[in-house]
């Protein structure tokens, strides 16, 4: 019991809060400087979305807790020490409210980290879509064209085959499919190369081609994944091998059990609860300058049998059914006046979308209450002193 008491006491101590806040500051600082050399995505993974990390100072490795761990402990510390065990009284209400707001902000962060999905939707003017695509995640999909003309997809998200990065075999199967798909190696960034006579290919050669691994690009979006897969038909025992590459435009077509399938490695796709049509994209420059004044996409949203026009522009996203769509990018960059343009909308599903606003209001009230009281007391004492 004594041990537990001491543990809770330590966990709720102000000393721990100070240590955690300082650690978070240190991580933030290191993670900022690191961005000069490494891309944001890698830095985020290493410093901010991790439990532990090793920071190199020259040849000296320094182990540190990751920001996720620090914030998780800080949350517990805040709840225990800053809310539950804190002395309650007229002079601490402001602080209490502030701590509640901060705790809520941390909750928002965790909800966003574990329950949000983000990606983009890129459409030329006139095109429409009901899916959006991830920036970072990959999936392997088996497509089958059904007699009624529709496509049936069996999808394996990257979580199921990422471990084959080191050559571990992973078997993907589904009751719907007459075969198993074996992933023998996954490469997070690679190019397809023809095998020439003068060199040894580092990885298996299939139909004269092999995948050459590349170092990861600074911007994660630039990585193009590839995978060696094999299709196993348990009935016949036939094994067929193939290379899948993330930048191909058509799937690998195979016949199995008298049916035709397509197998594809692609960026993860998510279904939108509506159909969106890109009607018009407009980019306006400041007069006589090449600096953009505004970007906007006129779109039509089809929900069931109804449709409505929406204008999405900088600082004015479209919010609908838990999704938020933002004006993110456009192209082609070398377009001449009158050319057909495409517009990229960033799509985010984040249940904690509005939490920060509420947290901000709570924190502001708490701080104003606390320091307002202090200020009033200070002025009163100064006036008394002066008198």
């Amino acid at each position, binding site marked *: 019991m004594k041990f537990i008491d001491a543990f809770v006491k330590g966990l709720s101590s*102000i*000393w721990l*809060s*100070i240590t955690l*806040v*300082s650690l*978070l*500051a240190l991580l*933030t*600082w290191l*993670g*900022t*400087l690191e*961005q*000069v050399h490494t891309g*944001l995505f890698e*830095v*985020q993974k290493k410093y901010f979305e991790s439990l532990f990390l090793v920071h190199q100072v020259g040849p000296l490795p320094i182990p540190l807790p990751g920001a996720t761990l620090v914030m998780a402990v800080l949350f517990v510390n805040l709840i225990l020490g800053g809310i539950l065990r804190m002395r309650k009284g007229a002079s601490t209400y402001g602080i209490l409210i502030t701590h509640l707001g901060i705790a809520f*902000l941390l909750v*928002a*962060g965790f909800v*966003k980290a574990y329950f949000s999905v*983000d990606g983009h939707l890129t459409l030329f003017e006139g095109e429409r879509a009901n899916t959006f695509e991830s920036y970072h995640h990959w999936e392997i999909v088996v497509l089958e064209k059904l007699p009624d003309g529709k496509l049936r997809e069996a999808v394996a998200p990257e979580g199921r085959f990422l471990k084959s990065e080191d050559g571990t075999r992973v078997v993907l199967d589904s009751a719907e499919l007459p075969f198993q798909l074996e992933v023998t190696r996954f490469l997070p960034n690679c190019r397809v190369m023809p095998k020439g006579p003068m060199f040894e290919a580092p990885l298996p050669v299939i139909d004269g081609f092999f995948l050459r691994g590349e170092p990861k690009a600074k911007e994660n979006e630039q990585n193009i994944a590839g995978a060696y897969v094999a299709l196993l038909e348990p009935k016949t025992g036939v094994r067929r091998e193939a290379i899948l590459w993330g930048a191909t435009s058509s799937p690998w077509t195979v016949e199995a059990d008298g049916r035709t399938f397509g197998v594809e490695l692609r960026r993860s796709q998510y279904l939108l609860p509506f159909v969106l049509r890109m009607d018009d994209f407009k980019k306006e420059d*400041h*007069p*006589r*300058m090449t*600096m*953009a*004044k*505004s*970007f906007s996409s006129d779109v039509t949203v089809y929900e069931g049998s109804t449709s409505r026009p929406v204008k999405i522009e*900088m*600082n*004015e*996203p479209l919010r609908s059914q838990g999704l*938020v769509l*933002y004006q*993110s990018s456009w192209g082609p960059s070398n377009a001449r006046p009158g050319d057909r343009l495409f517009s990229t909308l*960033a*799509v*985010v599903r984040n249940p904690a*979308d509005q939490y*920060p*606003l509420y*947290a*901000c209001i709570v*924190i*502001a009230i708490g*701080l*104003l209450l606390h*320091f307002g009281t*202090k*200020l009033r007391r*200070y*002025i009163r004492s*100064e*006036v008394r*002193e*002066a008198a």
Partner: protein
Amino acid sequence: MKRLISVLCVLLALCWAPAAAAQHDHNAPGHVPHEAGPMRAAPWPKDLIELAEGLPVQDGGRVKPFHTFAGFSMLRLSGKRSLTTPAGDRLTPTEWMLDLLFFPDQAHTYEVFRVDDIAAVREFGGPTDGKQKRDRWSFNELAPHMTQLFERAQSYLAIDEKQRDTVQTQVVMLAHNVDEYVRVSRKTSFAQVKLPVGASAGLSQVFGGREQIHFSELIAKVDDLRKLQEEIDRDPARSGEQEPLNSLLQRAVDLVESSEALAMFPPITDATAKPAWLTPSDVLMGAFSGEGRAEEHLSMLGDLERAMEARGDMPAMTLALASFSGRAKQLADRRGEYEKVPLELVYYKSKLLDYSHYAFVLGFLLVAFLWLKPSSKLLYRATALSAVTAVACITATIVLRCVIRERPPVSTLYETLLFVTAVGTLSGLIMEWINKKKLALSAVVVLGTLGIFLANRYEALDKRDTMPELVAVLDTNFWLATHVTAITIGYSAGMLAALLANVYLISKLFGIKKDDPTHLKSLSRMTYGALAFGLIFSVVGTILGGIWANESWGRFWGWDPKENGALLICLSQIAILHLRMGGYLRDFGIAMATAFGGTVIAFSWFGVNLLGVGLHSYGFTSGIHTALWSYYIGQWGLMAICGVRHMIENARKEALEAQARPKEQFAPARAAGGRAG
């Protein structure tokens, strides 16, 4: 007619290429042959200068007074806002710009191109005799070496901006400046020469047998020329007339410059339909492409031609320019673009910011005397008066800027400097008003003097309009008013706290007011106050920034360097306040930590922009490196000295206590540390 247009288009495209190189390559299509032009004999008359200063022009995406345009052009080229001619006259930017437009050959003798390292001039074989390491060159001095300059600059442009050394950077900048200079100078070259009509019956008929015509007369006859072209096309016998017609148009095109800088002709249509103002080149193109020509524009071209012809006769020139200015104002006013121009002129001419600076400096001097003679009521009042005046002036400066641009107070890095200074000094004045200990007042004059000095330095380094148009994502008054204002107030209070903490450290280090125990205590309380005030705005401002990011980019937090900087400020302030709360730090420790917090703010405010990554690198911040590092090193150095001194003092005190203590008694356990302050 199609032929006419295509000829014009090709010709215009040709003279788009480096204007400056063309200027001195006599075979280049952009070259305008002219004999040495007249020199200005008398100073510019006052009424003409006033006319010119208030002339509305469009530059950098917005309509502004000619005075603003000329001021920043000169600042960009020469690093200051005045110029001494070889004859020893001092010129204002407007006078210099008028010389460039109407007496170019004279303006070319002015040493206006500043180069920070003479090695850059040696690099392309420019003249270096009699020049200092950092000096200014005239256009005429550089002119013979133009080709080499542009070749060098071209090759350095291929190097990534960050990889260029200082000499390469200087060469590129000089080439850029010379190019801009020549482009601006060519905005009136259409008025400097007359066009020879050429031997052609048709042309002669169109222009009533005259041998030479003005540029504006050519545009006035666009319909007749179009008819002439049709007749030539129809009648093969008249094909000989094609050549003179083409040659006339070619000469007209040679006279105009189509670059983006300095548009002085407001379109006659409304501002939303046609936001871009016109240059003589656009007027020419518009007339020939069938868009039509406006009588107002023809008259304005005529005004400039008359002003040019009247060179030497200042009253006549003034009259012509008055007519031009009147038409420009009327057109701009009709488009709703003139309203703020006079106010901006008042803003720059009133020099409110300079007065604020003088008053702060005066206050600074007075404070020095006040500390020597603390009992003097008169000195105290004088200091307070000068500080109040200074704060009032800088506040008025910011208010005027808000009114002119119809924006919240902070939208550029330059404006953060003004706003931080204003808020910091205003808070200091309020503190002084409450406790009247002279400490806050001292901080106010130091902060004000330093803040405006830095703002002026920043403006001179950045060399661009400080009230510019904004990129799309920033163009939102709601978020500028909430997030940016809050975070900047946070910077401001944090810097004020750091300044007070430094006063504490220095007081302690030099034993200032050693016998007054309330001195350090008051400083400590004020530091705490500023810190608390700052924390509210830093935290709220940072979260608001996240909410804005969520509105525009779809994520609340992305670990972008600027976001991280803001978070660092919040975390450091939270850590300090908790260290104080937990009794881990007393007054001295708080002062040390808060002073360190100042460097954290500087890192977030300017330092992260120097990293050159992330979404917030909008400010042009090269050259700020040195200032920033001087501050870091100075601050950390002071902290180190104070820290060592503090430790020695503590050790001495302990030794004394140990001596004084009876030997057989054990030392009492130290109190765990209560709440300080």
